[in-house]
């Protein structure tokens, strides 16, 4: 008689419905899901508290790498001589005579207007710090633009009541978070980026801002005299989204004095142009930056200036050559053409042209510009047909 392998009788197999018995349970995911539930039960769901505060109970961070408030007002505001609404009123007055400030003010006023219509979507983050009067003030970590948008709106519209801004208290403010947030809003200027890189380096080295300094750029500039900490560049590459070489070029811009840094920041002078400016003698820096702003000089043209300096050609002739109306206009047309050519696809080009058209209308240039562009197009077409 042969032995048969005995199978053990399992009564449960008979009682389990087939649909269940044949169902394969994904135990791995079930265990993971249970683990997550247990973890969440233990730590509790993350609950953030959003509060509402008036701007008068808040204070921007003096050493935020992206500077917003003009230097002429900054020192008095941070010294407590004027409040945020007085600062906003002065800023509005300054903007009447300065296109750079005007563009920024218009953007912030538009943001303030959108609060009215849609509400404030993102809260301002910060921490409570002791104030000079013995009380407490909410120091802003991220969201300074929203703060000034609200203050400018009050000043511009002459409102009596203070708005209430949504704020979130964070445990420890971080330069990293400031830099990341700056990118979400609007990519910083070259000077802003230089300050961000310096701020990240100083934070990593544990160098705290010196609040006795009159010039905040001095704090950022101090990074130039320090060795970058170990592992710094790989750590900030993903945050800044720039190559190491580019970041090193940017941080070098901090050699410019504070007044020129602010000027370059206000008008968003590109890094390439400022790099060329730095090759000029110190006494030529201011003029070169103004020329870059007013005449739209490219880095090549600034480099030409540097060459002319070295060749000791009479400066007046070079200046006259560059300042001729046709040179100024051509520089602008060339930059427009290059910007359009460099856009990757048709959708991007359409978007760019839409934005330019909007800007022309907003700035009130349409009436003067359209006839000029039409005449220029005719002249170019005429020359092209003769070729």
């Amino acid at each position: 008689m042969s032995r048969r392998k005995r199978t053990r009788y399992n009564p449960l197999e008979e009682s389990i419905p087939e649909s269940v018995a044949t169902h394969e349970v994904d135990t791995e995911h079930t265990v993971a899901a249970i683990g997550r539930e247990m973890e969440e039960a233990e730590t509790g769901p993350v609950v953030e508290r959003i509060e509402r505060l008036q701007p008068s109970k808040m204070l921007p961070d003096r050493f935020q790498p992206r500077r917003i408030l003009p230097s002429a007002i900054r020192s008095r505001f941070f010294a407590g001589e004027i409040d945020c609404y007085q600062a906003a009123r002065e800023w509005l007055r300054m903007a009447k005579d300065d296109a750079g400030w005007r563009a920024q003010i218009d953007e912030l006023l538009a943001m303030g207007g959108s609060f009215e219509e849609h509400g404030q979507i993102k809260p301002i983050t910060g921490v409570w710090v002791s104030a000079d009067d013995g009380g407490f003030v909410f120091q802003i970590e991220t969201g300074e633009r929203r703060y000034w948008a609200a203050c400018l709106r009050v000043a511009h519209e002459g409102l009596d009541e203070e708005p209430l801004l949504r704020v979130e208290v964070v445990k420890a403010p971080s330069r990293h978070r400031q830099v990341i947030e700056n990118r979400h809003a609007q990519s910083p200027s070259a000077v802003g980026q230089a300050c961000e890189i310096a701020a990240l380096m100083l934070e990593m080295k544990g160098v705290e801002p010196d609040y006795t300094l009159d010039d905040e750029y001095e704090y950022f500039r101090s990074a130039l005299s320090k060795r970058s900490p170990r592992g710094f560049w790989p750590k900030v590459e993903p945050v800044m989204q720039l190559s190491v070489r580019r970041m090193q070029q940017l941080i070098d811009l901090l050699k410019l004095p504070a007044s020129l840094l602010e000027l370059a920041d206000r008008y968003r002078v590109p890094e390439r142009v400022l790099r060329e400016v730095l090759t000029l003698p110190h006494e030529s820096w201011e003029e070169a930056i103004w020329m870059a702003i007013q005449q739209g000089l490219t880095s090549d043209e600034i480099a030409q200036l540097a060459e002319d300096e070295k060749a000791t050609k009479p400066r007046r002739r070079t200046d006259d050559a560059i300042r001729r109306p046709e040179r100024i206009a051509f520089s602008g047309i060339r930059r427009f053409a290059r910007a359009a050519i460099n856009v990757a696809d048709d959708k991007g080009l359409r978007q760019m042209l839409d934005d330019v058209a909007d800007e022309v209308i907003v700035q009130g240039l349409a009436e003067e510009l359209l006839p000029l562009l039409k005449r220029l197009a005719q002249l170019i077409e005429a020359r092209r047909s003769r070729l």
Partner: protein
Amino acid sequence: MAIVITVANQKGGVGKTTTAVNLAAGLAIWLQYEARSPDRVLLIDTDPQTHALMAIAFGSHLAAPHGSLAALLIEDPPPSVQRMIRRAEHHHNLHFIPNNTQAMTDARMRIPSLMARETRLARAIEPILELYAYVIIDTPPTLDDLMINALVAATHVLIPVEPSYLGLSGLKELQAAIGQVRRHLKRQDLQILGYLPTRCVSQRSEVQEILDYLNESFHGKMLSPIHETTDLTYAHSAHMDVFTYRPPRSRQDVRLASASRATQEYARLVDEVVKRTLGPVKV
């Protein structure tokens, strides 16, 4: 880090509020004129009646529920305590957290059902403890969750005791409660700063007998007595602490006390509290 003194006794009318107010004000004046320190004092009133706050900031002592002490106790997460803090009327370095009577009464009913109900006050004020030299907490005359919160938040307990037979009756329960806070809420460091005889009337025969009994029972823990005087009553009616109500001719000679007995006795209390909490202080 602040020295947090809870003024507690579940018997009503023993002078807790009077002591909390005058001790807070006295410490604020001491810090400014004698220690010449920029440090500050914070007064917290956990009694829904808010009598302590009325004495230091009448007119600005109340706030909407969401901006009051009640919100700190029951909301989760709590609002920022820093935004609530206000300055007292007569002393620039004396701060307080405003309250709301109805909200505090509601909080008293809700707290028993909340998680970590005993530690809510401690956690709410933890972010600001480094910014104050002293925090004085006045408590209601009941041994409930509000009192327990005040004990858990404290580093020291000051117990006003009326020298009468009825005045002694609740002490045992309070001492038991302090013992339980030490054991079960892991506050082994909670100390009894002292027993303060209050509302002493020298003419009553039993007073000295009870004071002797207290000295014998709590040797080394007794503080100098505070006598019943009209200055204390009138000061409170005038919404002032007694040092403001009866100031010395000049603060230039660095004195807390004036000719008023009440100011002298509370000045002595301030001196004793400073010595027991900070040790001998070189001024």
